[in-house]
C-alpha cells in the first residue's frame, strides 16, 4: 500500500485541467453516477421493456425514438475512467486484487458496507442530480448553486455521521 501517490495538489490541478478541458471542449463537466443510471435503465429495459416504458422514471430515458441509454456521453467517459485508472495502476504498480478495509474490519463486513454505501450513493445521486463528480465538483467549476449545496451536504453529513461509523475505519 505504500506505492507513492502524486502530490495531492498536483493531482488536483491535473484533475482540474481535465475538468476544464471537458467544459471548454464539450460544454459540460465530468460525471459518474449518470453512467451507473444508464446501466440500470438499459438492464431494466432489456429484462422488462413494458415495465420500463410504463414507469415514470425509466420512460424518461427509454422508449420509441430514444437512443440506447448506453450510447451516452457519461458511459463513454466512465469507460475512459476504467481505462485511465487501469493504466495509472499499471504504471504505478498498484494493480492487485484485494479488499481494502479498516484495520478492525473483516472482508465480509467491508463488502456489506460497500454495497450499502453504494446503494445510498445511487439513491442520493438521483435526488441531487449527480454525485461528488457530476453535481459537486463539476457544479462548483461552473459556479452552480447546486454544486456548492450538494458538496456541503455530502461532506457536512459525512462529518456528522463519521463518529458513529468510526469502527469501520479507525
Amino acid at each position, binding site marked *: 500500500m505504500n506505492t*507513492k*501517490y*502524486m*502530490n*495531492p*495538489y498536483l*493531482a488536483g490541478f491535473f*484533475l*482540474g485541467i481535465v475538468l*476544464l478541458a471537458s*467544459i*471548454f471542449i*464539450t*460544454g*459540460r463537466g*465530468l*460525471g*459518474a*453516477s*449518470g453512467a451507473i*443510471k444508464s446501466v440500470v435503465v438499459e438492464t431494466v429495459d432489456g429484462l422488462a421493456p413494458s415495465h420500463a416504458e410504463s*414507469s415514470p422514471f425509466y420512460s424518461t430515458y427509454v422508449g420509441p425514438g430514444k437512443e440506447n441509454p448506453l450510447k451516452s456521453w457519461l458511459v463513454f467517459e466512465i469507460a*475512459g*475512467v*476504467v*481505462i*485511465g*485508472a487501469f493504466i495509472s495502476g499499471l504504471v504505478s504498480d*498498484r494493480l492487485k486484487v*484485494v*479488499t481494502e478495509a479498516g484495520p478492525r474490519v473483516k472482508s465480509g463486513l467491508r463488502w456489506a458496507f*460497500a*454495497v450499502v*454505501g*453504494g446503494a445510498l*450513493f*445511487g*439513491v*442520493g*445521486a438521483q435526488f*441531487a*442530480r449527480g*454525485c461528488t463528480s*457530476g453535481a459537486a465538483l463539476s*457544479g462548483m*467549476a461552473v*459556479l452552480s*448553486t447546486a454544486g456548492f*449545496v*450538494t458538496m*456541503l*451536504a*455530502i461532506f*457536512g*453529513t*459525512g*462529518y456528522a*455521521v463519521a463518529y458513529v*461509523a468510526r469502527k469501520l475505519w*479507525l
Partner: protein
Amino acid sequence: MGPFVPDLISDQLNLVVALVLGIGFGVALEQAGFSSSRRLAGVFYGYDFTVLRVFFTAAVTAMSGVLLLGYFGLLDTDAIYVNPTWLLPAIVGGAIMGVGFVLGGYCPGTSVCAAAIGKIDAMFFVGGGLLGVFAFGELYPFYKGFYESTSLGAVKVFDSLGMSQGVFAFLLIVIAVGAFAATTAIEKRVNKKSAPSLAFSSRKHILAGILVVALGVILLFLPDRKTHLISKVSDTAYLSAHPAKVMSVDELAFRIVDHEPRITLIDIRTPDAYAKYALPGSVNIPMSDFFGKDWITMFSQRHVIKVILADDETKEHAAFLLLQELGYENLAVLGGGLDAFNATILNPSVIVTQGTRWDADVVRFRADARKDILAMIEKNKSGGLKEVKTTKKIQGGC
C-alpha cells in the same frame, strides 16, 4: 470560441472525446490515491485529507479557468451547462450520499477507478450503486413530487449569495488555501508524524499557496466581460469620443423597399417590444446576446451592412461600439433610431418640408415607402418569415 459541441464536434465524435476525457479523469483520480477507500475515508477522521486537497484544488483550477477563458472571450459561458438547482432534493440527496461515503468509503467515480485496479470492495460498491438506482427507479412515484420540488433553475452561487462573481471566486480560493493549511496541521496531530501526503517540502507549499491567493486577487478584480464591455460602451464620454456610422431614415426605408440583400437589420430592443412591431427582415438580438456564439456567422458577414435598431440613437450607438469592440465590421446605426423612423415614415405626424424643389419627391417617396413597409410588416405578422432564435442546448449532468 468554446465549447465546440455541437457546432464543430458532432454528437458521435463527442463520445470519443468523452472516452479520452474519461481516461484523463481516471488517471487523475488513481494518481491522487482515490482508488483507496481508507485514504478517501481519512478525510472524515483527520488522518488523511487527500480528498479535500485534490477536490478543492481541482474545483478552484477549473473554476478559475472557466472565468479566465470567459473573460478573454475564448469560452461562451452562456452556452456551457450549469447544473440546475433543486434546493431541497440537492440537500437531501447530498446528505444520503454523505452517509454512503462514510459507510462505503467511495463515491461513484472513485469506486469505478478503484474497481479498475482490482479493489474488491469497490466492485461491491459499484454493485450497490446499481441497486440504489434501481430502488430509486422502482419507488420513484412515491417521491416524484419532492424530487421535482424547489426548482430554482440554473442559478449561480454568487447570485444566490448576493455577491459578485469576483468576490465569490476570491473568497473560495482564500477558504481553500486556509483549509489546506488547517488540515495539514490537523493531519500532523492525528498521525503524530508527517502524514502520507506531506512528504514534500513545506516551503514549496507555502509558495504555492501565496501564488494561488494571488490568482484569487486577480479573479477578484477581473470584471465579468459582459458587464465590463457593456458599461464601457455605455459611457457618455466614450460614446462622444467614438462616433458611429449613421444611416438616415430615408436611406434605410429605400433599402428596405428595394429588398436590398446586403443589409441586415439588428433590432436590440427587448423581445416584447420587438414582438409588438418590428421592421421587415429585422432580427431581434439584445445587446447581452452579442457575446455568444449564436450570431457570430451573421455578424461576421463583411459585405453586409449591419444596421442597428433601437428606439433612440444613443442605445444604437452603444451597441455599435460594442460590436466594434468584439471585432465586427461594416456596421451602422439608424439616424434618430426607430422613433425617428416611426415619425418620418410609418406614422408621420408632420411632414417636414425643407423648402427645396425635392420636397414633393420626398413626400411621395415616404408615402410610398410607408405603404410598402406597412404591407411587409403585416405580411410578416400573418405567419410570414420571422427569424426565430434556435439554440441547441448542451446536455449535461448525471
